[in-house]
């Protein structure tokens, strides 16, 4: 399976130049390499990560690639005999100034803001100094882009959150946050896909099914997709 889950890359993609800068390359154990882009969490950086993922995915020694938020994890089939050489090839690939603008689909997600599942809305208001209506409005008015999937099946990390409602992850996670909870984690937002412990801040709830293992592709969202939240109900 392609990291773009099939379709996105076959649609017209623009290749453009990005200014070169030094990435950080580190390893996890013996067979995984993490390339972290320098600079801000913005879409140009993310496009460059997508381009890197696209270039590295066909390498014969690569088993899986996991694009993250301005970073890429490359998982090898085997421990490399020449780790320095591999690191140099990854660096070289990054230095080729390329970027992919994925033109994905638009997904509209109806949300109930506030209410019983929005247990952290008050904390977001306190932290931002904004009223609850304002926090909710800033959230649903946002234009979001799926930068990566991860953490749990079908969970999409969304870029485009208004900086006024950035909110750090909680130091003590909620133990049993419901699947479907609409959350803010730092400068990211998303809809949780599993019921369980979660350190992000809940502000609402969405019914939409984000993952079905029987479907191809199993995840509703793919990198490059646009997401709009529709305020179906606001319970404040």
């Amino acid at each position, binding site marked *: 399976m392609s990291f773009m889950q099939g379709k996105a890359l076959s649609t017209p993609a623009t290749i453009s130049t990005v200014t070169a800068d030094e990435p950080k390359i580190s390893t996890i154990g013996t067979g995984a390499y993490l390339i972290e882009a320098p600079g801000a969490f913005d879409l140009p950086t993310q496009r460059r990560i997508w381009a890197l993922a696209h270039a590295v995915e066909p390498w014969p020694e690569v088993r899986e690639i996991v694009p993250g938020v301005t970073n890429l994890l490359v998982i090898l089939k085997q421990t490399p005999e020449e780790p320095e050489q591999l690191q140099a090839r990854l660096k070289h690939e990054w230095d080729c100034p390329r970027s992919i603008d994925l033109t994905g689909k638009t997904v509209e997600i109806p949300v109930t803001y506030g209410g019983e599942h929005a247990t952290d809305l008050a904390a977001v208001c306190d932290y931002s100094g904004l009223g609850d209506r304002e926090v909710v409005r800033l959230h649903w008015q946002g234009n979001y882009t799926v930068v990566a999937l991860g953490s*749990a099946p079908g969970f999409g990390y969304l870029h485009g959150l208004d900086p006024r409602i950035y909110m750090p992850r909680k130091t003590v996670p909620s133990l049993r946050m419901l699947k479907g909870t609409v959350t803010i984690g730092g400068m990211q937002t998303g809809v949780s896909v599993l019921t369980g412990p979660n350190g992000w801040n809940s502000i609402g709830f969405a019914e939409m099914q984000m993952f079905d293992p029987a479907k191809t592709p199993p995840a509703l969202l793919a990198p490059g997709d646009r997401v709009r939240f529709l305020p179906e109900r606001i319970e404040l």
Partner: protein
Amino acid sequence: MIEVLQTGPLNTVQDLGRFGFRNAGVTSSGAMDRLALVVGNLLVGNDEGEAALEVQTFPFRLRFDRDMTIAITGADGDARLDGRRLPPWWAIPVSSGQVLELETPRRSARTYLSLAGGIDVEPVLGSRSTSLRGGFGGLEGRFLAANDRLAIGSARACAVPPGGFGAVPPEAALAEHFPAPEDDTLLVRAIPAGEYALFAAEAERFWTQTWKISSQSDRTGYRLSGEPIRLASPVELRSHGVVPGVVQMPPSGEPIIQMSDANTAGGYPKIAGVIDVDLWRLGQARIGSGIRFVQSSVAEALAAERAVQAYLDDIRRTVPMLSQALAAMSRR
């Protein structure tokens, strides 16, 4: 078919894991002790990645409803066939109606039951492994319960002596390639990871102290308890992919090692990564036991991997030879 008569929670169907969907947030799952799974499959003449039962809560009892060949690997502990004790790492033919009972292993954590033909559950996203978090794969995405019946695939012809035969357990066969436990503390080899340098002088204590595997440990990850190791100032990393073996340091200062059901992404600082070839030993480490990290290198990992391959090659060669010899004898 096999029928589960008695089981604790969290016993599941596992193969070598689900790959290719990590970028959709799907954890690989798969056996916690992959080496035991591979050996079990080789002993019964299967492809090495066939699905087996991973038993981690005991006692576990099941009944066979046809004649078949089975292998029990992973644990050092008590397996009984109709009350008769079997040696560890053993393959044996069983008859319809016989009952197998697995008791708590003495030192290790997980027992694998491989069956000739493999467990025939429907693959989901390319694997038969149970994803407990995702609720799919294996048997209906859940752990086994009493009265569950599992279909077994059709086996290749593979003769096994009536009394069975075994493999030398890897702890013994590979003793010189894995550091021996010290004072009951498992030594786990690891390589510094992305944020290691941020821990500065604190990092020393990561290697020197004995960490205890806390009761909040499972197939997703092991939470370790010990003297906390803290960053001078907290860092918030952007979410990035992680793999089993990553040692993360949450704000509490007590490490988490992600295991087979590892989250696919994380944001905690990474202090180290366990070398892949040591993960099976960690998969056999029990809650409450002690581990210590030993700084390693790719070169050392490669040497250990070669030793493991030589051990497996030996089994790959021996099993068919034994099988052919037995078949020839029975024709006489």
